[in-house]
């Protein structure tokens, strides 16, 4: 019998923060940090010896590092999509996922940027990009875009975190002194007054719109690095939208995997419900179909155009040496996810986790089949290049993944993995859509199917109706946790 009330939802989310770290957690984080350390050693070998320690050669000048770059930047777009674009459109099922999505953005972006730095022959000259900028280069604009994106999303992540840090400050009396000090400092004196909520609401909405533009421009720019060259296989018109789409696709898949992980670890079954995941699955299904469309269009143009150099790459991908990778990629990005997601009964959380991982593998392979074959088949017949990642490249890839996961796990020990105030908002919202006289701050979960406090998609109660409810206007505790409600009050 699950009875979730607003205050209980809070403690449920905060409970994992008070529990001492188990040996499983310590061992996992330790292992991840060790893998990351090993990757730094591999990198140091590369700095010492030169990029010759990789599998790169003439003409495959770009390999796993650049693939990782596109992959990590792609994953980071999940955060922006779920937390900003879905926040602007006020999509209800996003709420339990926003915090994790933003964390994925903030923690995967540095590894995307690092992937480019690892790829440099002279990482010691990195600052030359600032000292001698050359504005016709897509790489320079990548630097501009990605640093803007990193700063903005860090700020956005932090701002949405402030009310929850304040919650930690107020509700976790038994934490060690250093954590108390950390929460006190980071909470910025947040008291949850209407003025503060209004400011936060405005800031988040404004930044959401800015991030919306950024998410498109960042990955467009990443695609420019390839599309703006004359290289066969890269020089296509659809590459930018395809990149943005692929980024969002892999990002949402990653959010699902990590959300399911924390749902299990932190016992958040009643806050992240099956219904949330099912909505997410439908969204993923739509992305999956779009992905197939873009993939077909891209290759159909090449096939129909019959340009010699382009066709050589297409053949290498379809039935040549890259065929195993290419068709695995198609299976991972479309075949397997579509089959599972298309059947409503198969959209279980366990299946979604598997699908999420499969999509991530598929999207990584997609970048591989974009970047490597184009390198291996240049215009002039210099002889076909082969490329096999070396142990250094494999180590760095593993290290970056481990570092990313370690940061997420460390974060989840210190701060709530759910946006508590947004989840509370959802608890409140649900009552208006149900229109039932439920006591303020309490939501009855009993006997409901699937979950009465999750409004059906597109069937939410209108916000104006919410504002007219007299019992709500007087509910002070609810006002504190409903910023959008406060701003609506201000308008009327």
């Amino acid at each position, binding site marked *: 019998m699950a009875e979730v009330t607003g205050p209980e939802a809070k403690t449920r989310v905060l409970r994992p923060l008070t529990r001492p770290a188990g040996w499983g957690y310590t061992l996992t984080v330790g292992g991840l940090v060790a893998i990351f350390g090993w990757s730094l050693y591999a990198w140091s070998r590369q700095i010492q010896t030169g990029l010759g320690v990789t599998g790169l050669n003439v003409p495959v000048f770009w390999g796993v590092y650049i693939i990782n770059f596109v992959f990590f930047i792609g994953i980071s777009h999940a955060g922006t999509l779920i937390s900003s674009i879905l926040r602007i459109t006020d999509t209800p099922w996003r709420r339990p996922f926003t915090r994790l999505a933003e964390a994925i953005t903030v923690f995967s972006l540095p590894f995307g940027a690092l992937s480019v730095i690892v790829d440099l022959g002279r990482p010691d*000259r990195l600052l030359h990009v600032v000292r*001698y900028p050359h504005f016709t280069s897509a790489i320079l604009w990548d630097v501009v875009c990605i640093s803007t994106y990193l700063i903005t999303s860090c700020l956005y992540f932090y701002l949405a975190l402030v009310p929850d840090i304040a919650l930690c400050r107020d509700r976790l009396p038994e934490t060690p002194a250093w954590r108390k000090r950390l929460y006190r400092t980071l909470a910025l004196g947040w008291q949850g007054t209407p003025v503060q909520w209004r400011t936060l609401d405005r800031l988040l909405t404004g930044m959401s719109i800015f991030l919306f533009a950024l998410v498109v421009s960042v990955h467009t720019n990443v695609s420019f690095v390839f599309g703006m060259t*004359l290289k066969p296989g890269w020089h296509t018109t659809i590459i930018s939208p395809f990149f943005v789409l692929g980024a969002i696709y892999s990002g949402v898949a990653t959010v699902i995997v990590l959300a399911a992980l924390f749902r299990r670890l932190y016992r958040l079954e009643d806050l992240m419900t099956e219904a949330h995941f099912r909505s997410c699955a439908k969204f993923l299904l739509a992305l999956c179909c779009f992905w197939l469309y873009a993939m077909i269009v891209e290759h159909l143009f090449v096939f129909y155009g019959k340009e010699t150099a382009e066709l050589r790459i297409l053949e290498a991908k379809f039935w040549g040496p890259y065929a195993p990778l290419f068709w695995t990629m198609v299976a991972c990005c479309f075949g397997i996810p579509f089959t599972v997601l298309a059947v409503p009964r198969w959209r279980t959380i366990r299946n979604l986790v598997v699908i999420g991982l499969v999509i991530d593998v598929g999207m990584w392979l997609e970048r591989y089949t974009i970047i490597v074959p184009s390198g291996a088949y240049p*215009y002039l017949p210099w002889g076909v290049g082969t490329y096999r990642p070396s142990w250094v490249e494999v180590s760095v890839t593993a290290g970056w993944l481990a570092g990313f996961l370690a940061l997420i796990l460390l974060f989840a020990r210190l701060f709530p993995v759910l946006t508590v105030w947004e989840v509370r908002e959802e608890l409140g919202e649900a009552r208006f859509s149900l229109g039932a006289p439920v006591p303020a701050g309490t939501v009855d979960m009993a006997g409901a199917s699937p979950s009465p406090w999750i409004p059906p998609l597109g069937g939410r109660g209108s916000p104006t109706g919410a504002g007219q409810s007299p019992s709500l206007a007087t509910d002070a505790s609810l006002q504190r946790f409903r910023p959008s409600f406060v701003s609506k009050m201000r308008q009327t």
Partner: protein
Amino acid sequence: MVRWAMAIDLEKCSGCQACVVACAAENNVPLGSPQEATMGRLIRWLQMLPRIEGEYPHVRAEVIPMMCFQCERPPCTYVCPVAATYKNPQGIVAQIYWRCIGCRYCVNACPFTLKWFNWFQPRWPATMAEATNPDVSLRDKGVTEKCTFCHHRLQQAKDRTRAEGRPLRPEDYRPACVEACPQGALVFGDLDDPESPVARLARSPRAFRFLEELGTQPKVYFLAATPEA
């Protein structure tokens, strides 16, 4: 304005590779090891592109000497994030080694695959290391390099003619490969002078340029070999 250009007569070229050796010696290009060769990592500012036409038994094979084409609109210069590669006032695509960050974007952007990357610190046998050309800077690991039409020779020619108090004539400046060719298959000169040998060859009906359709306007012309009767 002088536009330095080259014409390569494939009719005259015997594929002896004297140009390849001359280039490597002149520009301090490391020999490279067999391992590097297997990995496809040799650096050759000038190298032979093998071309095989037809099917057995009617096969025609040839090798074509290729160096940087010094495009009028070089795709490699647009993409460099630090402007380490650029087209200098003489129309030669230059590379600033100390500025290059080694991102290999220009190497990727070159449609002809004629730019090179230092995968390792370059090494020479001890006797050769003492005999590097002092006029050409040595490159570090992790930077891109390329043919410069022996640009240092242009500097020397300018100094020499200034000392002699006379204007620079096209014959004062010839890259090492041109000088080394025993058949005189490589012709170098000013494309803007309609009477220069290179301009005349460029107008020949046999003349063609590689991947002209991409619009990079290479300044290296090739003269097709007439098929043997």
